[in-house]
């Protein structure tokens, strides 16, 4: 049942430019490094930081920002497809359980974001190789910094999806999301417990894995909370 729902959800995002956004995001992040390395290549060499290690951290400086922005836009998009002509009433009147409808939306978004994360890794590797950085390609580091960031931002995904789906007016989740993007941007100044800090993979123990694990756990908790609320609500 859930498989069929995901298939229909993937069908509904056709011609909406959503896949394009999923490509544009990671491309944009790497494009910023193209500018960075294009302008300051000599400076990096001079500073002895023209290596994979520093390159990956430079890429990662913009990933959280792009990812959170992407989550805000995609969740709102997904919700607006159903809100536009209030097709929630049509879906819920189908022989499907309400939780599977919610899970399907969540899974579709996860598919899109994982796709974008994979592209980010791919683009980073390609541009890194193009630059001819010093040393071996640090694949593990690359994958870590892409996917840990994704896992660490799962609470934001859960929260935005919930707000988008329950809001008739998509201005609310967008406003909330923009504040989130700004917070993500200021991650350095935020306390460790704030979910908007987590995608930066920074914490007082200097261990990115903590952010990823917490992200996964809290993300799933928020997802379950949103789903239970969705089940409880009457469909207008």
């Amino acid at each position: 049942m859930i498989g069929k729902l995901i298939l229909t959800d993937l069908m509904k995002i056709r011609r909406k430019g959503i896949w394009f956004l999923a490509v544009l995001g990671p491309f944009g992040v790497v494009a910023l490094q193209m500018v960075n390395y294009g302008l300051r290549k000599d400076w990096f060499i001079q500073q002895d930081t023209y290596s994979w290690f520093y390159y990956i951290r430079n890429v990662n400086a913009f990933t959280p920002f792009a990812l959170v922005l992407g989550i805000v836009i995609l969740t709102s998009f997904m919700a607006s497809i159903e809100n536009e002509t209030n097709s929630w009433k049509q879906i819920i009147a189908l022989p499907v359980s309400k939780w599977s409808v919610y899970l399907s939306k969540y899974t579709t978004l996860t598919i899109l974001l994982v796709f974008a994360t994979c592209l980010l890794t791919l683009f980073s590797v390609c541009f890194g190789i193009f630059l001819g950085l010093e040393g071996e390609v640090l694949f593990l580091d690359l994958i870590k910094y892409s996917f840990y960031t994704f896992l660490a931002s799962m609470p934001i995904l859960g929260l935005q999806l919930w707000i988008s789906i329950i809001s008739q007016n998509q201005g609310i989740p967008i406003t909330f999301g923009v504040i989130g993007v700004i917070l993500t941007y200021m991650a350095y100044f935020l306390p460790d417990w704030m979910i908007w800090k987590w995608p930066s993979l920074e914490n007082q123990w200097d261990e990115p894995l903590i952010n990823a694990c917490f992200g996964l756990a809290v993300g799933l908790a928020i997802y379950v909370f949103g789903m239970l609320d969705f089940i409880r609500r009457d469909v207008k």
Partner: protein
Amino acid sequence: MEYIVETNKLTKRFGKEYAVEALDLKIPKGEIYGFLGPNGAGKTTTIRMLLGLMRPTLGSIQIFGKDLTRERIDILKKVGSLVENPSYYPHLTAYENLEALRKIYGVPKKRIDEVLKIVRLSDVRNKKVKGFSLGMKQRLGIAASLLNNPELLILDEPTNGLDPSGIIEIRNLIKRLATEEGMTILISSHLLSEIDQIANHVGIISKGKMIFQDSIEVMRRQSQNKILLKVNDCKMAWNFLISNGIEADFSLESISLLDRKDENVAMVVRLLVENGFSIYRVEEEKRTLEDTFLQMTTEERAI
């Protein structure tokens, strides 16, 4: 009689307002049930509860003899519905819109072409719904509700926004579905004339309460034309008529005769005159179904 839908004291409260109050809806199998009521009477809220979109505050719903809260998914497999304005995805074509629903029902793909043909949208199957007229969107909504060959079809104001020829078309379609496919159909409307032409069972709801529920013949009988007689002493005249075996109703100022045949009226008049009653007026009261409906709903409002 076998009931496809049966609700027991169905109630929905929004805050302090009762949208639907202690509703006992009974829809017999194979009938077209007209669900009538003025705007805001609680028709759509009731339908939403029947489809499991809203949770009743109180009461229970049985569809196909099964409890809705417990076996919702099983029930919905055999129910088709169109609630209020049709829902669709404007950026997808008519075919893709139906395909998205077909996948979930798991019916064969050729069913999409069948339902498109039923609502005569085959020509525009590959056009985006964005460009459809309201009538076409409404028809697409009906096509969607027929996808799973439902045993129970629930249509909420299906002729809303359609032009006269569209209305006739939908009406014929609904009649055909009931006779040929044996579907039980619940159709809501605020227009009596609409229901009068297709339904064989009527439920009238006003302010969330069911004020009439029976076959349409019973309602027609209530709204037959009557002969009104005004005489000097109504009560005595009425007693006199009854004792002479004449069917008559007595109200405050007049006697009404149900049998409108000329000879009958003449006989009654003669009887009354011969027995010393003074007849002031003999008039025919014309009542349409619409009058009965209006009277029923406004009486409720007056309380």
